[in-house]
């Protein structure tokens, strides 16, 4: 490994830690929020279903960078609170990826044939039970591949947090570069690190999908 990297390894590692932490918060928070949005829309809950639709359409039309600026600068100014860059970017990632995940979960829900629902109702289950025990598990299983590709996108997108001053992998790499000025080596190593962690995440997705298949 090049000297420049070895010398700054602890610093870069703490950056990698922040990247993974941001991605983790985004994945957990985004999945929960996205699933709620998708269910609200799928069950056509009055008012809330419309709100969920509006939310996903708006957020999916806004660049992540603008979303982070809104979470870091605009929302605190509007509501009069103070926010650190890390908290603001975590909030931004959750709000941002939730809209995309909602869309993936919803198409998973829509792909379940209505015959299954009717069969479930015919066996005497209540509508809520049919949804929870029959529709939802199958929809979740089907949405694993697209959802994991959103997770990978999120993992890459955490790099944008460096723009508002979060010291994650990209942010610390840029700091190291400002001190050492070896952009080609430092950025190549950063790119390789992203390549590896993104590949691991999509590999996990593939394994999970294979594990969840129903064997007949």
């Amino acid at each position, binding site marked *: 490994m090049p000297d420049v990297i070895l010398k700054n390894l602890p610093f870069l590692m703490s950056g990698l830690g922040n990247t993974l932490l941001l991605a983790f918060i985004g994945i957990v928070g985004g999945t929960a929020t996205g699933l709620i949005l998708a269910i609200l829309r799928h069950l056509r809950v009055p008012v809330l279903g419309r709100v969920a639709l509006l939310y996903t359409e708006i957020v999916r*039309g806004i660049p992540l960078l603008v979303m982070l600026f809104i979470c870091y600068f605009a929302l605190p100014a509007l509501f009069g609170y103070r926010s650190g860059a890390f908290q603001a970017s975590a909030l931004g990632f959750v709000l941002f990826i939730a809209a995309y995940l909602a869309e993936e979960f919803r198409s998973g829900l829509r792909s379940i044939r209505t015959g299954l629902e009717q069969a479930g109702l015919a066996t005497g289950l209540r509508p809520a039970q049919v949804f929870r025990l029959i529709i939802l598990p199958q929809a979740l299983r089907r949405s694993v591949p697209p959802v994991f590709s959103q997770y990978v996108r999120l993992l890459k997108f955490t790099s944008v947090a460096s723009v508002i001053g979060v010291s994650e992998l990209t942010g610390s790499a840029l700091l190291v570069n400002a001190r050492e000025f070896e952009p080609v080596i430092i950025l190549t190593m950063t790119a390789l690190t992203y390549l590896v962690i993104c590949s691991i995440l999509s590999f996990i997705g593939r394994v999970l999908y294979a594990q969840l298949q129903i064997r007949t």
Partner: protein
Amino acid sequence: MDYTFDWSPIWNNRDLIAEGLLITIALSLVALVFALVVGVLVGTVSASKSRIGRLVAGVFVECMRNVPLLIHMYFWYMALAFLRLPAFSCAVLGLTLYSSAYVAEVVRAGIGGVSRGQTQAAQATGLSPLKVRFLIVYPQALRNIAPSLASLSSQLIKDSSLASVIAVGELTYQAGAIEGQTFRTFEVYITIALLYLALVLCVSRGILALPGMRHAPRVAADA
């Protein structure tokens, strides 16, 4: 919530915003054209029979796609600093390479979705291999992948906001500049968020409204 709204700084800086919007459109358009060209080439290779071709295309796609766009931007901006390219070209390069990987995957799937019978029938009528591609395979693939291409295009427009980090004077960059002068944080970012939203909606709806992009009715089942 004791924030008082003041939209006048936005209106006073409307020419800056308009300039930013124009640069955003130009950047996205140029990058989109290049990304489509590169993406179709790579996608065609990765849908081909050649094993080495598929491998090379696969490595290209994985390497371009799994590296954050921000790193692409910084990398091409700093690594090619000795060429003294304007930031705009570096942003085009970064956006093109990053997006072309996504286009390639979509194109590969689109070509794979055209049934073998179509190619075989076209060859049987005596069309040259090039004509088979351009007259038979690509038009059908295009219809199948039009929705994905539309969403990739709007993705690209949103991604172009990252060019602001290498000081390309597009919409997000101008917003930062206006915000720095006027401190009307909320108004500025809401305004550009709405502008992006409008742009993305126009493009994603517009592409699908083009003639030839809609799904052709399925006339007969493939043999």
